[in-house]
C-alpha cells in the first residue's frame, strides 16, 4: 500500500494513503482526543474535540475526517488547538446537566476525562436549570438525556453495526434529542435490546441498569470469553467485581462479532433467577438428600456397572463445552457402548461436503437465501449481519414454512416447496450466500445442492455447541422410553422429561432446579457459563475459548470435570487435564 509522509507535532509519521489525520496519529502513538469518534463507527466530525492545526488550512480541521497528504504539517496540541478544545468542552458542559459527582460513569466517562485534561474547573456559560427526561422504559438499560452530548455514537451503532435503525435525532440545535422511531419511549420502540448503544456511549447517558453504581472500571476485572447462548460464538468480556458478574460486554477484537452482542448474550444470562443446585443430591427412601461428591459418584458408577449398555440412554444439552461433549461421547458411546444417544435440540442437515462459507461472507453477498432458520430470535447477531448486508444493497430471500423474524426485510418470502425459485435467483447472483438451519426439508436440501460451488453455505445451527455435538455423533437418535437408566447432561437447559419411564434410573447433571431434577435419582451440580473454562465450537466450526470469570457456586463443578471424574472412578483413562481433553476434543471435532 502506498505510504504518505507527514509530520505531526514535528515528528515524522507515515501512514497508508487514504488514512485520516487521526488514524495516522494513532499509528504513531500520538494522542488526539475524541468524543464522537469510535473505532467501530464511520467518522462524522461532529463533536470538534479532535480539531488540529494543519499548515496551510485557513481553519482548524477535525482529525477524524481530514485526509492526510504528502508533506502535511499537523499540530495537535498548539495554543489555538487547545483553546478551541476548551471552548468546545465549555459548550458541551453548558448543555444538559453534567454533574459528574452523581453520575454512574464518573471515573469512566470520556467527557469527564477531557474536562480534567483541559482544566475545565468551572462553568463559563450559564447552564440549564431545566431537567431533561430520563427514559427507563427499557428493561435492561436507561437513557438519561441529562448526560447526553449528542455525539450520535448510539445512533450510528444502531444503524451501521446492528442495522436496526431504531435510534435517530429529532429537532435541531439546542432542541436536538436522541429519540427512537417516531419519538416513542425506547421500551415501546423497535429496539431489540442488543445493548450496542450502551457499549459505545462515551458518557453516562446510556446506563446498564443491573451494574449501575456497582463500581468503576478500575475496580473490575474483564475476562475474555466466548458467548455460549447460541451457535454464533461471539467474543465477549465478562466484567466482574469481587467474584460477582456485573455485566457482559462485546469484545471489539473478536473475529466473529467484532463487538456486537444481542439480548440473549448480553443481558438474559444475568437475569436468570432459577434456583441453583449447589450440592450433589441422591434419592434415599424416595427423597432427594444432599451428599458429598464421592458418594454421588459412587452411586453413578455402580449404576453404570449394574445396567446393560443397551438399557442406557444419554441425552445432552448443546450448551456444554467441547470437552464435556467429547468426554460424554467417549465414556458412554465408545467405552460403554451406549447407542441410545441424543441432543436436546435439532441439528441443521449436512448440506455440502465441506461447509465452505463463513459468517463474514454475508457481509459481501449480493443475495442471501435464508432457508429454514430464524436468526432474528435464534442467532440475533447473525440477523444483524444480514440486515447490514441489506443496507449495502444485498437482497434477502426467506424460504421457510414457519414464521420468520426477518420476513419483513425480505424482498421475497417463499415456502419450502418453492425453494427452486430462490435457487434461480441465487444462480444469477455474483456472491450468493445460503444460510440454513434445522428447518430445511430433505427435498429443499437436495435442491440446494445445485448451488454448491456457486454459493457460500453457512449453517445456522440451533442450540449452541451443536456443530461439535454433531461432529462427535451425539445426535444418533434418542428414545427416552427405550431406556431403563438415563444420563442427562442438562446443564442450564430445561427438559420436561416426557416419555421417561416411571421406574427409570435418572442421573442429571444440571445447574438449576427443574421438574427433571426433582424427579431424578442422582443430581450432579454443574457450573454455569461464567464458571467454567474450556472451548466451544461455533456454527462455522471455529473452536474458541471459554474462560472462567467467577468460581462455581457451592460445590458445582464444570461440565467436563464431572464426566472426567466419573471416567476416572470407572478406571477409564480418557483424559484428566483440561489441556489434554481439549486437544482430544479438537481432534475429534475436526479430524485432520
Amino acid at each position, binding site marked *: 500500500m502506498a505510504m504518505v509522509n507527514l509530520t505531526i507535532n514535528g515528528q515524522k509519521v507515515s501512514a497508508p494513503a487514504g*488514512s485520516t489525520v487521526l488514524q495516522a496519529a494513532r499509528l504513531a502513538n500520538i494522542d488526539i482526543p475524541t468524543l464522537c469518534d469510535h473505532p467501530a463507527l*464511520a467518522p462524522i466530525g461532529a463533536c470538534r474535540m479532535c480539531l488540529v492545526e494543519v499548515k496551510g488550512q485557513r481553519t482548524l480541521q477535525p482529525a477524524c475526517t481530514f485526509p492526510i497528504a504528502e508533506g502535511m504539517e499537523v499540530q495537535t496540541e498548539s495554543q489555538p488547538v487547545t483553546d478551541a478544545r476548551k471552548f468546545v468542552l465549555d459548550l458541551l458542559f453548558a448543555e444538559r446537566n453534567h454533574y459528574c459527582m452523581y453520575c454512574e460513569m464518573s471515573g469512566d466517562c470520556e467527557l469527564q476525562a477531557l474536562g480534567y485534561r483541559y482544566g475545565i474547573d468551572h462553568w463559563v456559560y450559564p447552564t440549564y436549570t431545566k431537567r431533561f427526561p430520563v427514559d427507563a422504559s427499557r428493561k435492561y438499560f436507561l437513557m438519561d438525556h441529562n448526560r447526553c452530548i449528542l455525539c450520535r455514537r448510539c445512533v450510528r451503532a444502531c444503524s451501521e453495526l446492528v442495522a436496526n435503525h431504531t435510534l*435517530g435525532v*429529532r429537532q435541531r440545535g439546542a432542541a436536538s434529542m436522541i429519540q427512537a422511531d*417516531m*419519538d416513542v419511549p425506547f421500551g415501546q420502540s423497535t429496539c431489540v435490546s442488543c445493548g450496542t448503544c450502551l457499549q459505545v456511549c462515551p458518557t453516562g447517558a446510556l446506563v446498564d441498569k443491573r451494574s449501575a453504581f456497582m463500581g468503576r472500571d478500575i475496580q473490575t476485572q474483564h475476562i475474555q470469553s466466548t458467548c455460549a447462548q447460541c451457535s454464533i460464538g461471539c467474543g465477549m468480556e465478562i466484567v466482574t467485581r469481587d467474584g460477582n458478574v456485573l455485566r457482559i460486554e462485546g469484545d471489539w477484537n473478536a473475529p466473529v462479532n467484532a463487538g456486537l452482542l444481542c439480548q440473549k448474550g448480553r443481558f438474559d444470562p444475568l437475569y436468570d433467577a432459577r434456583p441453583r443446585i449447589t450440592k450433589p443430591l441422591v434419592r434415599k427412601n424416595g427423597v432427594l438428600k444432599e451428599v458429598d461428591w464421592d458418594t454421588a459418584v459412587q452411586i453413578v458408577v455402580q449404576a453404570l456397572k449394574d445396567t446393560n449398555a443397551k438399557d442406557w440412554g444419554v441425552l445432552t444439552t448443546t450448551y456444554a463445552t467441547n470437552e464435556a461433549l467429547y468426554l460424554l461421547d467417549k465414556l458412554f458411546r465408545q467405552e460403554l457402548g451406549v447407542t441410545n444417544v441424543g441432543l436436546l435440540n435439532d441439528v441443521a442437515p449436512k448440506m455440502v461436503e465441506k461447509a465452505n462459507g463463513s459468517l463474514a461472507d454475508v457481509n459481501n453477498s449480493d443475495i442471501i437465501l435464508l432457508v429454514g432458520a430464524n436468526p432474528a430470535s435464534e442467532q440475533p447477531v447473525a440477523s444483524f449481519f444480514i440486515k447490514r448486508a441489506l443496507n449495502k444493497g444485498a437482497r434477502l430471500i426467506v424460504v421457510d414454512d414457519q414464521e420468520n423474524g426477518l420476513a419483513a426485510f425480505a424482498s421475497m418470502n417463499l415456502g419450502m416447496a418453492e425453494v427452486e425459485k430462490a435457487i434461480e435467483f441465487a444462480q444469477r447472483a455474483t456472491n450468493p450466500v445460503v444460510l440454513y438451519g434445522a428447518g430445511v426439508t430433505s427435498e429443499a436440501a437436495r435442491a440446494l445442492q445445485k448451488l454448491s460451488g456457486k454459493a457460500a453455505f453457512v449453517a445456522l445451527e440451533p442450540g449452541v455447541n451443536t456443530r461439535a455435538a454433531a461432529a462427535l455423533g451425539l445426535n444418533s437418535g434418542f428414545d427416552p422410553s427405550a431406556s431403563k437408566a438415563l444420563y442427562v447432561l442438562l446443564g442450564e437447559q430445561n427438559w420436561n422429561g416426557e416419555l421417561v419411564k416411571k421406574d427409570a434410573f435418572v442421573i442429571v447433571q444440571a445447574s438449576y432446579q427443574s421438574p427433571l431434577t426433582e424427579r431424578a435419582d442422582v443430581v450432579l451440580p454443574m457450573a454455569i457459563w461464567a464458571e467454567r473454562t474450556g472451548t466451544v465450537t461455533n456454527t462455522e466450526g471455529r473452536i474458541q475459548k471459554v474462560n472462567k470469570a467467577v468460581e462455581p457456586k457451592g460445590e458445582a463443578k464444570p461440565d467436563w470435570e464431572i464426566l472426567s471424574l466419573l471416567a476416572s472412578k470407572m478406571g477409564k483413562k480418557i483424559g484428566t487435564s483440561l489441556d489434554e481433553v481439549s486437544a482430544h476434543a479438537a481432534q475429534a471435532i475436526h479430524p485432520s
Partner: protein
Amino acid sequence: MQPLEAKIADPAKRSMLLTALYIAQEQYGYLTKEAIERVATRLGLPVADVYSMASFYSLYRLQPTGRYVLQVCEGLSCHLVGGADRLVDYLRKKLGIEVGETTPDGLFTLQTVQCLASCGTSPAMRVNDALYENMTAEKVDELLDTLRGYHV
C-alpha cells in the same frame, strides 16, 4: 477510510425524501405517523431517519394546523413599514389565539415567519400557499371573512 456501511442502497431514494415529505404534508395536512410511515416504506428508508428529517426542518409540520395557516412576515421591511407587530396583534385579538395556536373551530393557525420575499409590497402575509400584500387591518378583516365564507 472505513466505508459508510449504513448508507442506504439507493442514494436517489434518499434524495427524494424532502419532496416526498412535502407531498405527504400536502395530502395529510401535516405529517401524521401514517404519512411518515408511508414515506419511509415507499423510499425504503428507516422510519427513525424519516422522522429525524421531518422534525429537523421547520417547514414540516408534525402537529395538525388549521385549515388556513396565516403566516405573517416579521422580516425587516415588513417591520419597518409598521406592519408586522400591528398585524400580528390584530390577528391575535381578532382570532383570540396566540402565535403558534389554532382557533377552536380548526379554521385558522397563526404563525410568524421571516421574510416572504415581498419587501416591495410590505407588510405581507401568506395564507397557505397564497401571498397577500400591502396588508392593513381592513384587508385582514376582508380576507378572514372571505376565508370563512368558503365554509358557510
